[in-house]
């Protein structure tokens, strides 16, 4: 082959290749077959709305039994795996032994000096030493986890709830390092074998993503109260922190409330009535 004709062959081939690949791109751009151009997305009519969702926990109403029913209600409804659950060997053969340090929890109880480690007190009132305190994600206004996430898989919704998009999470766990409250858990393994009864209305998560309390956004969207509120026998109240007449603000006006690690400036939205 002569040099010149090989070169011109390659030139023509290159231009043809660009031409062929441009065709589908142009077709795609010119069509409006996203189909959703004329469709409308909206909220459910019965959805609850707030400018900034917050939670008030009345610690005087928290007992060990209440804690147990709250934790169970939340974890069951959201398919949070329980590593103490014995795996169905037929359905999941060859399941490797669990590492309890890799547990997942969305809401749980802690003693005072673990929930509020910045409130060290040698002379703390006796009754506070063993009282159960509920801890969970605080859905902070200036959430450091939202700032840290490199894909915005962890993000802050306009109503103040800090949510996770499990499809986008790459499992880098930077949010877990950023959270000052230890509220986040990582799926080190497939959680399915450890869910006693899968609730079909809520997806489970897969291995490799971080998860945490979602403020029952799916319940609020149907006009229902979060599971922890319903199971708490009145100990937990949620509402709009920016509405001065909401239940939570009323409670906060009547009682002195504290938040975890407030001096860090993340502005947690979970208040504790002491």
């Amino acid at each position, binding site marked *: 082959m002569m040099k010149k004709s090989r070169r011109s062959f390659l030139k023509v081939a290159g231009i043809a290749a660009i031409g062929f690949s441009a065709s589908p791109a142009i077709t795609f751009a010119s069509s409006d077959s996203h*189909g959703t151009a004329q469709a409308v997305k909206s909220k459910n009519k019965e959805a609850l709305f707030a400018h900034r969702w917050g939670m008030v926990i009345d610690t005087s109403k928290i007992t060990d039994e209440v804690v147990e029913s709250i934790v169970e209600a939340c974890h069951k409804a959201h398919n949070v795996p329980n590593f103490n659950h014995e795996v169905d060997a037929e359905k999941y053969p060859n399941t490797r032994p669990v590492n309890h340090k890799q547990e997942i929890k969305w809401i749980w109880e802690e003693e005072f000096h673990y929930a509020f480690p910045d409130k060290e007190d040698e002379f703390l009132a006796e009754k506070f030493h063993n009282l159960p305190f509920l801890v969970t994600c605080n859905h902070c206004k200036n959430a450091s986890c939202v700032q840290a996430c490199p894909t915005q898989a962890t993000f802050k*919704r306009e109503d103040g709830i800090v949510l996770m998009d499990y499809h986008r999470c790459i499992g880098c766990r930077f949010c877990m390092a950023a959270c000052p409250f230890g509220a986040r858990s990582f799926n080190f393994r497939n959680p399915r074998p450890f869910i006693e009864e899968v609730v079909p209305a809520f997806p489970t998560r897969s291995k490799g993503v971080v998860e945490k309390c979602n403020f029952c956004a799916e319940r609020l*969207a149907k006009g229902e109260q979060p599971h922890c509120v319903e199971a708490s026998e009145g100990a937990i109240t949620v509402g709009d922190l920016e509405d001065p007449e909401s239940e939570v603000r009323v409670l906060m006006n009547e009682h002195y409330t504290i938040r975890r690690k407030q001096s860090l400036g993340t502005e947690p939205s979970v208040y504790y009535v002491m």
Partner: protein
Amino acid sequence: MNKNMIITGLVIFVLAVLSPFWFNIITTTQAAPEPELLGKAKTEKKCVLDKYEMRANHMSLLDEWRDSVVRDADRQYTAANGHSFGMSLSTGENSCLGCHEDKAKFCDSCHTYASVSPYCWDCHTNPKEIE
């Protein structure tokens, strides 16, 4: 290496590379499967998008729906034809599976044929699986 050997080799190579297609043409007698419309999908014929659009774009539609539900808190989808649906794969009567009922006969029939395995079901639960 003379011209004949090279051309013979090329022909054999092309045939070998295309062998999956020969295999399918020779052994398969059926055309691509049609997904079965069951239950409410069959009777009510309320569609989110028309058939061809759905086939081509259901993946990006689900993507958009997810962003709407998770990021914007919008869960109602009112289609161009006026019917409204819940933007969910498997939860509720107005979700995808709420109308199209059977994952095996609807989703899997095309996916298996096209050798596509989306990982939706790693997390989302097919209600029929629980029963």
